[in-house]
């Protein structure tokens, strides 16, 4: 096996391995997003999902040879950041945590902020 062959097959293997890891990463982040329990947790999940997607795009670009996909990755960087910023802003302006909302709900019932936490 020449170095070249090794390099090529190692690279191919790395790509497969990378894709497997990234798929696992997708799964795990999705679980966090769905589990929450708090809004910041979910936002964090989305942030990681963005990063994983960026990585996924990079690997697919390597795999398929269409390196121009890097532009998509850049775009995702931008909006990923925007999303996190916006959600941070959202958390801040909502001004309440889920538990606070739940407490308020017990008292007032009808009105509360955007609902939070998972349901029992």
């Amino acid at each position, binding site marked *: 096996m020449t170095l070249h062959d090794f390099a090529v097959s190692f690279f191919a293997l790395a790509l497969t391995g990378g894709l*497997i890891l990234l798929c696992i990463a997708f799964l795990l982040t999705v679980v966090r997003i769905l589990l929450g329990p708090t809004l910041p947790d979910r936002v964090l999940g989305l942030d990681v999902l963005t990063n994983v997607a960026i990585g996924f795009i990079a690997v697919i670009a390597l795999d398929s040879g269409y390196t121009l996909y890097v532009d998509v990755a850049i775009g995702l960087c931008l909006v990923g950041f925007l999303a996190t910023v916006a959600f941070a802003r959202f958390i801040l302006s909502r001004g309440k945590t889920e538990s606070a909302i739940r407490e308020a709900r017990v008292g007032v019932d009808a009105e509360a902020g955007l609902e939070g936490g998972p349901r029992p």
Partner: protein
Amino acid sequence: MTGIEATNGYIALALPFLAAALAPLLTRVLGQHAAWPLALAPAAAFFILFGAVPGVSAGDVFLFGFDWIPSFDIRFSFRLDGLSTVFGLLITGIGTLIVLYSGGYLAGHKDQGRFFSFIFLFMGAMLGLVLADDLMTLFVYWELTSITSFLLIGFDHHREAARRGAIQALVITGGGGLALLAGLIIIRELTGLASMTEVLAAGDALRDSALYAPILILVLCGAFTKSAQMPFHVWLPNAMEAPTPVSAYLHSATMVKAGIYLLLRFHPALGDTALWTTILPAFGAVTLVVGALLALRATDIKITLAYTTVASLGLLVMLIGVGTETAIIAAVLYLIAHSLFKGGLFMVAGSVDHGAHTREIDRLGGLGRAMPITFAAAMLCALSMGGVTPFVGFLAKEEIYHALEYADPYYIALMIAAIVGNALMFAAAFIVALKPFVGRMPETIDHPHEGTSTIWLGPLVLGIAGLVGAMFYTTYHQLFSGPMASAAVGAPVEIGIGWVPHLNLAFALSMATVALGVVIYLLSARLRSGIAGFLAAVGWGPDKGFDQAMRGLIRGAVRITRLLQPGQLDQYMAVTIAVIIAALFGPLIYTGGWPAIPEFPRLHFYEWAVFALLLAGILPVVLATNRLTAILSLGIQGFAVALIFMLLGAPDLSFTQFMVETLSVVILALAMTRLKLSVADHRPLRDKIRAGVLAIAAGSGFGLFLLSIAQRPFDRTLSDFFERYSYAIAHGRNIVNVILVDFRGIDTMGEIGVVMVTGLAVLALIRIRVGPKGARYPDPLEETP
């Protein structure tokens, strides 16, 4: 007709409309005296038509017209024969008198100009109706009479009764008109006959057609509603809400005769069948008797007259239904006579009202001294109506009894109806024409007075005309009734009846009628209370029925509308989706365009993973009770879609999808910052089931159809073209972008239009607020430098 004569015809047709246009102006300038110049219009039309009489009486038929709507094969054409010419003469002649009468009657009325306009419009419509040859021309005028009578009846619109009368007339005659339209169109499309002339020339074509019965019934619907046959008669008495000149005009010469005209017109083509001789006499006889009884019952002399009109119309329909030559002659004679005396009597009633300020028969009496001319005119008309010789009414009544004198149960029944009806009408005539003028004048009447010349001129002329017509009956028959009857029979007829009574059965019956009439007149008060009592006991009538029908219609409409338009978006949406599902599955099942069962797809594991990611995103969006989970999951599925696009070679799409999806989630979250959404946000199980069923059906429908399409061969010509010329001509390597800005640039132009408007619309939504809240958000434009 030669060209000049056709021009004259058009002029005659146009004159009333011209007068209608001028009336408001003239009235403003001349006040009530405007009646004189305005009356010139119908008078001129009268003389123009009169010019056709010699030819017509010799059996000529004058046709003129032009292609109105060649695309629809519709002509604007007219036919002057005996029937239409005499009708036209009645309309314009009586019309002239009515106009003059209106000048006096409504003197000083602030809307007199408007009134003149309406009555001229009506006159023009009526004239066009009787002269029309093309079936559609006829119908246009027909409906015009409905519209204009709506305006005339509702003239005193501040009174609810007037509005009701107007609506009732429009509803009944308009409804009948639509039936007539259907009938005419069927005639037209079934037989190709487009005009009266063609219909009359076609012989038995209509009678033999398969659709004879529907045609007849539809035409009769039109005629009966217009001519106030039971039970459609209700609108006519209620139309008395109109000013008296209108009543005189509508209910003597014109509108109500439109139906009679139609029957006479169609008699040669549709008549003399079992259906015809059954339906018409039946309706006519009932209408005659009931109308006459109701006339007796009324206390308002205008109403009395109105019901006698109903009765007369019944008599006419009955005669036309009998359809023999004599019967048609009788009908024609009665029609002319009725036009003259009834027009006169209505005007008399108006004069009485005008002079004594009441129309209640119990409060009238002794006016003869104060209003001698009116009294004279009234007597002339009443004698004609009563069938006393030497008036035209006598000629008619004689001929009627001639027409019915057959020893046959059918004719005997009709004869009895005729005698009873005539006797009642005789009594009614004198109740109106005699009772107010003789006897003691009630004290309630203050300063009764004769009206101006315009007011008494009309009835007087009509009364005298009735006398003159009978006196010179040969000329009368030769010029008017003969040609008219010939046209209605469809063959030349001779009329011999004269004012000199002959001792025969008819005369005897006439005498009997008069005798019976006198008795009824004398017993009228008692009869009146008797009928009134009977009606009160019944407690219901078609008039009440009309209100009930209207209310029922509206209530039913409300019920249906509320059912169909419940005001709830989710129901609207569910129905919409259901329709879409039906639109998918209906034809799929009907045509059997199911996809073939696909083989198991071979995908890379990471492709599966992306699809799994998609599913992992979709499910929580649907199922999560927590909205934020749903929103973030929306982001997940959006990312998955973007990744799918990337895996399948669509970087631009992927790029855009990532951006758009993230932005969607972001603004969704931003906008929801302030929403204090209610917590109790569960979907009832029933809703879930409904939504689930719809969802599964819609999803599988779209998916299956997509699969079946994807299994077909594909024509890639367009894309090949784009690939070929994208760089070579459009200088772009990104084919997608070249499609967007060049190949299909105008799509993009529209698209950015959407984007721009969205920005503006959102701005408008956020900035414009109702109420004090708005003050908190000043327009930022004020702040910008």
